[in-house]
Structures are given as structure tokens and as C-alpha cells.
């Protein structure tokens, strides 16, 4: 305890660790701050697809704290043009580096695209509440990741965490549910646990893109062991149509069995405790607003739990200004949540889509 107190005192003198000075718990020393503001070196910043850039920054503090679904808020230049930071989803995390994927849409991203390796970026993160998930403990659980266009970005990080090897925790899984899913997804690979007790888990990833040249991260998902299906607007590869149509087609193969399953109880995904029990299927989606609205409708129709990562224009990005509001469903009256703090991930049935907010 003595040593802990001394370390707290030393760190308190360091301006960057202001969060620790206010924290009384010695065990939280290095991780007292949930959010960091750091100057991060650019390791890589290149165009990888039409109008799409991959940027890697060295940010070990953020990398250590980051959870899938969270984002960083970046100052793209030192001055007042542009004024505000730009929020970007955390795309990948590896060895203290944070990968970002972005589209050049306006002034801010235009400037970011010109920044070079060796230069530094002022980055705040990790921000937001992230996806709620558990690494599957039985091969009968199925998670579906739906990536529309640039929405791919945070889902790669999620896939990284989902496919990390892990020992089976051996909870009880109902026999009945297990059999249902085996019948329903009989075309899919069902993998038996190996003798060493390790389970290989394969999420299903649906990627939606305008055309074959716009497909993002297919190789990344496959390398992580995911099963990938593609939808292109113009049919130049895979399913012709929107990724939400592809989802509907996937669900219809499962439908007849699933509809006899007990109704799912929804639990708030904003819980910090991640003790949510997933039933047969869970959807994680990120992409353009119309896609999310469709996924929301489809998932609720099929009674499947779905988590959506939303976007909103942000000013502070840390939950203080109330600018990035999204309307949530409420029986009487109006209520909003902050996309930067209460989100960006929300349960599909929470969102009141009527109000345009992005």
C-alpha cells in the first residue's frame, strides 16, 4: 500500500496523468483514466481502395484500453482550420498500434489523408461504449457482423477479439437450442471442440459494397477465420443487392426453426458489466444510416438481438456538450442519448428513427 501511495503521488505530479491524481484506488494506477489525450506518431497512412485510407498510429495507451466499437477523436491539423476534431472508429489494434480506416469526405479527412508517417497526431481515446459481446462458448452460437461500406472499420476490431483463441468455459447450453441451430445452419461448418479444449469460432460476416472494387477488408476477416459473404449493389460480386437483403436471405434459411424458439428478452447493451447472455443469434452492424434502419427493422421482425454502431456530428466527443444526440424510443415524451458517450453502439430496438440526426 505504501508503494502504491508513493506511485500515485509521483504520477500526480505528471500533468498527463491528471486522472490518477483524483483516483484513490492504488490498483488502478496505470489505467485510472478511461480516456487519454496523446500525441501519436503516424506509422502508416495510405489509400487502400477508392477514396478509402488506412492509417496506423502508435498509441499504446489507447491500444491497451480500446474495446471494439469504440472510437478516437483526432485533431487533423494544429490550427483552427478545420476547428473540430474528427471521430474515427478503431479499426484494428496490434502491438500498441491503432489502425484507422477513413473515407475522404470533406476538409478534415482531406487534410488527414495528406499527413505523413513520422508526423504526430493529437488523439483522444478510446471513446464511447463499444459493442457488448462474449466470446462464444459453444459452436452453436452464431454472431453475424454486417459491414456496409466504411462501416467495416470497427467490425474488424470486433472480429479480432471474437476470434481470439480461448478455452471453452463450459457453461450449460440447452440441448434443444443447440440442436435447432445445428439443423438451421446445417450448410455451415459446425466445428467440434478439439481435444485440447480450444474452440475455433467463426463469425459470419456480411460485407456490403457498391461494387467489387469497393469491397473492404474481405481478406482481414477471412484471415481471422470468419466466414465471409459479399453483397454488391451492382452484382459485380456475390449477392446482387443491399447487404440488408443478404441478411434477410440468410435469416430466412434459419427462420422456420428459430421462430419456435422462446422470445428473446432484450437487455440493455449499455451495461458496463457485459454479463448479457446471448441466445442463438446476435447481429453487429455498422454502415450508412439507411442500412442500419433496415437491419433494425429486419432484426426486430425476426426477434434477433442486434447492436448498431451509429454516427453523428460531434463537437466535444467526450460526452460534455450534448451535441451528438440521437433520439431513443420512449412511451411519452422525447429523450435523447449521446452517440459519443452512451453510444456509438445502441440496441436496435432503442432507436427512434423518425428524427433525422446524423
Amino acid at each position, binding site marked *: 500500500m505504501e508503494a502504491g501511495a508513493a506511485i500515485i503521488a509521483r504520477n500526480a505530479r505528471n500533468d498527463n496523468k491528471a486522472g490518477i491524481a483524483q483516483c484513490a484506488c492504488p490498483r488502478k494506477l496505470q489505467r485510472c483514466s478511461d480516456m487519454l489525450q496523446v500525441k501519436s506518431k503516424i506509422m502508416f497512412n495510405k489509400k487502400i481502395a477508392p477514396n478509402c485510407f488506412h492509417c496506423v498510429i502508435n498509441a499504446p495507451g489507447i491500444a491497451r484500453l480500446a474495446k471494439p466499437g469504440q472510437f478516437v477523436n483526432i485533431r487533423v491539423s494544429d490550427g483552427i482550420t478545420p476547428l*473540430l476534431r474528427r471521430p474515427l472508429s478503431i479499426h484494428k489494434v496490434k502491438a500498441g498500434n491503432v489502425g484507422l480506416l477513413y473515407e475522404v469526405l470533406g476538409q478534415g479527412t482531406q487534410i488527414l489523408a495528406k499527413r505523413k508517417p513520422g508526423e504526430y497526431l493529437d488523439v483522444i481515446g478510446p471513446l464511447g461504449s463499444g459493442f457488448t459481446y462474449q466470446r462464444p462458448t459453444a459452436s452453436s452460437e452464431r454472431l453475424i457482423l454486417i459491414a456496409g461500406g466504411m462501416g467495416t472499420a470497427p467490425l474488424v476490431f470486433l472480429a479480432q477479439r471474437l476470434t481470439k483463441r480461448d478455452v471453452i468455459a463450459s457453461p450449460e447450453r440447452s440441448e434443444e437450442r443447440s440442436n435447432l441451430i445445428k439443423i438451421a445452419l446445417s450448410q455451415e461448418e459446425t466445428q467440434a471442440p478439439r481435444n485440447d479444449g480450444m474452440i475455433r469460432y467463426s463469425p459470419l460476416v456480411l460485407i456490403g459494397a457498391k461494387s467489387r472494387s469497393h469491397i473492404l477488408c474481405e481478406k482481414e476477416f477471412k484471415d481471422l477465420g470468419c466466414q465471409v459473404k459479399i453483397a454488391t449493389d451492382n452484382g459485380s460480386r456475390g449477392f446482387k443487392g443491399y447487404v440488408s437483403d443478404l441478411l434477410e436471405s440468410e435469416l430466412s434459411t434459419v427462420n422456420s426453426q428459430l421462430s419456435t424458439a422462446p422470445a428473446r428478452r432484450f437487455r440493455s447493451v449499455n451495461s458496463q458489466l457485459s454479463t448479457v447472455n446471448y441466445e442463438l443469434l446476435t447481429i453487429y452492424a455498422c454502415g450508412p444510416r439507411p442500412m442500419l434502419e433496415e437491419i433494425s427493422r429486419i432484426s426486430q421482425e425476426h426477434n434477433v438481438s442486434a447492436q448498431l454502431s451509429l454516427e453523428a456530428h460531434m463537437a466535444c466527443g467526450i460526452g*460534455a456538450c*450534448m451535441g451528438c444526440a440521437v433520439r431513443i424510443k420512449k412511451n411519452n415524451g422525447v429523450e435523447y442519448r449521446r452517440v459519443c458517450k452512451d453510444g456509438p453502439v445502441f440496441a436496435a430496438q432503442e432507436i427512434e428513427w423518425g*428524427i433525422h440526426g446524423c
Partner: protein
Amino acid sequence: MAVNLSTNIGKLKLQNPVMAASGTFGYAEEFKDFIELKKLGAIVTKTITMRPRPGSRPARTCETPAGMLNSIGLENPGIEVFLKEKLPFLAKIGIPIIVSIASEIENYEYALLCERLDKASGVDAVELNISCPNIKRLARQGFCSGEAKAEARREDLPLISQDPQATYELVSLARKATKKTLITKLSPNVTDIASIACAAEEAGSDAVSLINTLQAMAIDVKSRAPKIAMITGGLSGPAIRPIAIRMVYEVYKKVGIPIIGIGGIIDLFSALEFFIAGACAVSIGTANFINPKTTIEIIQGLKEYLKSNKIKDMKELIGSLAI
């Protein structure tokens, strides 16, 4: 060389003249990871109203050249939840806490809010937000009970802070309702801000803070739609600084009470302009979004500036415009 940054505003004793501006700092909790809150001169909370307010329809913010628009719509949990859930954290910090208040039903509620805050320990001062451009004031006649009635009676009345007489009446009422330090926040959406400031002073305000945001607009050319849902909003950021400085200068010539300068301050030099124009303290707003450490960096910068210019006391800077 020891330098003195401290300043007094009404009954408040600030260790330095740098504050966090209302609406840009929440109730301080979000900033605890970035700065040592107890080093600030003071914190002004997000504006509180009698009842909870959900705020305006999104989109609430957009970027403009060297600035931003906001139409948050005074989203806040209401006075009771504020006192119970937000004030405890603020009170523990150990620096003056200034609570900003507003009402859609003018005087009546301002007085109630002042009385409530007068009794709350942990609250050191009240800032009267009579200048927010993002809420519609309800009809003067009758007390509106219930959201539906309120909707029906909504009118586009001018803000209290756009009329010297209305300002005088409001501030007098608030003055009677609290003995704590009273600050009146002024609107720049007027022709003669000094006359409003004088009215506040005459009514007993301990200080004035200026400026609040400027009523402004931006249009998305592709969709031809306004960039924010409420069409117009408040402009803030470096773009408004020259207007803010001019207004501080004009008010400084006419009033004797302390002036808190607000408007696009992002660093030491922009803060210095306000002190020289006549502000005895400054409030940092939009800059907190760009760099959460701005307030602390300005305090540090002020110390070093005074030292290297051999100025012993902040007071020597205030109103030291060379004309």
C-alpha cells in the same frame, strides 16, 4: 518572482482568472481524465432549468469556418436531479462553482431557481443565462402547466437580454432571491450591449459575462437544407472573437462591475486580448472541445507571461488598452 493571478468577483475568490464556460464543460465529470479540475479559477455549469429539458432535435451542431453552430436547446436534467446527482462531484473539486440558470417562463422561475440555489451548499454563484438563442420563450400571459399547453403558447419573443428594461427587472428579482454572487450573461445579438450591461449593474448584478453565442446559420449546398435541424443556432469559436473583444471594450467603458470575457479564446494570446480590453477573468468554451487541456495551458501561460514581463499582479493587465 512570485506573480499574483488571483481575482475577486463579487464574493468569489478565484485563484486565477480562467474559468470553464457554461455548456462546454457539462458538469465537469467528463474532463477529470484530462485536467486537474482543482487548478481552474472556477467552473460554470451547463444551464439548468426548473424542469428537465430533452433538448432540440438533432442535428444540433455543425462546423463553420473557425467556428461552430450549436442548437443544443438547453438539454439538462432539471434542478432537482442536478442538485442530487451532479452537484456533489462539483462541490468536491474545491473551486468556486457557478451554476447557470435559465427559464422559458422568464422572471417567475428565475427567482425560484435562485432561491433553491441560495440554499444549496456547494453552489458559490449563479449565472443568469438570459441570452441563450436556442430556446423559445413562452407567452408572457399565464403560467403554462404541462408540455402540451406550453407548446401551444410558444411565441418568438425577444430574449430578456435584448431589452435593457427586461434585463433590469429580471436581475432585480434574482438579486432579491439570492445573496450569493450573481453574474448576468449577455447576448451579442443586440445593437447596444453596453446599455444591457448597465441595466444589469443597476439592478445589482455582481458581474457581467459576455458574450453568449451569436445567432447564425449554415446551409448544406448539396441538400439545400440547413445544417442544423433548428435552422439557426449559436455561433462560437475563434470566428466570434473580434466581436467579443469589441463588446468587452464597450462594456468596460460603461460599467464598474467585473467583466468575464468569453468568445473564441483558444490560447494565452487570445485570452490576453480580453484582459487588455477590460475583462478581469475569461471563460473558455469551444476550445475545450479542440483541446481539453486549454484552460490549464492558459493558466500556465499566464503565469509565465507575467513572470517574463515582470508584471507582479494580473490587475496591471486589466483594461490596459493603449489608446
